[in-house]
């Protein structure tokens, strides 16, 4: 299932140059969904959010990544039930078709809200 972790003590530290406000960020940051926080997985979910379905090749071309890399990240999203994968043959050629699940869409929406909130807070400071 979706592995979730607090940025506190991990990515929180990325606010390094702002040392004066860093501790406060760490205290106030919401939980971020680590599955989506990773760049390729974020790309997969974003692309599927506005397409009913995309093939493995479409995603690979879109995200400019390798077969192996995409395969690993897509599988993690599949295990988290954020995407579904339909495998089929056209003639003798295997195809994989990915779709975003309602859980995946909610996760992306929540992630975007959290990022926007983080930016708003930073601007207020």
């Amino acid at each position, binding site marked *: 299932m979706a592995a979730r972790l607090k940025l506190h003590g991990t990515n929180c530290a990325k606010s390094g140059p702002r040392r004066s406000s860093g501790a406060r*960020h760490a205290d106030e940051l919401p939980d971020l969904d680590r599955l989506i926080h990773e760049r390729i997985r974020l790309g997969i979910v974003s692309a599927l959010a506005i397409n009913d379905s995309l093939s493995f090749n479409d995603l690979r071309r879109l995200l400019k990544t390798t077969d192996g890399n995409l395969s690993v990240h897509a599988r993690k999203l599949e295990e988290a039930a954020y995407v579904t994968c339909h495998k089929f043959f056209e003639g003798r050629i295997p195809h994989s078709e990915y779709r975003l699940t309602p859980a995946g869409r909610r996760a992306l929406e929540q992630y975007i809200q959290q*990022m926007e909130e983080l930016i708003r807070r930073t601007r207020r400071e």
Partner: protein
Amino acid sequence: MLDSRPHRLRRAHSRSRPLPQRALDDLRYIRETMERSAFTASPGWGQVLMGVTALAAAALARRQSTETRWLAVWLIEAGVAVAIAIPATQLKAQRAGLPLTSGPSRKFALGFLPSIVAATGLTFALVQAHQIGLLPGLWLLLYGAAVISGAAFSIPLLRSMGFCFLLAGALALLYPAWGNLLMAVGFGGLHMLFGAWIGVKHGG
């Protein structure tokens, strides 16, 4: 479990950007990814509709007694196709939450339009030279070139459609007598076939 905080801070500082910057980058990345993938979903059902009107135009044009009237039917059809394509693209972009002037749309237009401008100029030249019989081949070839150029950043499916148009155009130049039929096959059949494919596979 968690390492001691100073250790984790030091590691993160050495390899990461500030979190607010990461948030901005992530939002930008989401938007760019959506924009790039949006155009893989070019307006498929709009293309199907354009195909239907092209088939009707081909049937009507075939019955015309003069080349000038034949030309008029197809020029009107070109206008109808544009009138379908623009709102269909806009509708699709709206559904994706993107402006019509987003990056991928601009790239497509920049790749697509030069061949269309060339086709317009050559149409005038061939009409002046009373070579209307060459127009189907010219239109199919240059439309195919336009689609291939415009789809350089899009899905391979659109490029395949462009190559099919090139093939139809080459046949129309080799066999001018089949010109109207090949226009029906190209602007009618190919638009409907690939449009439906895009519509089903790429979100409408």
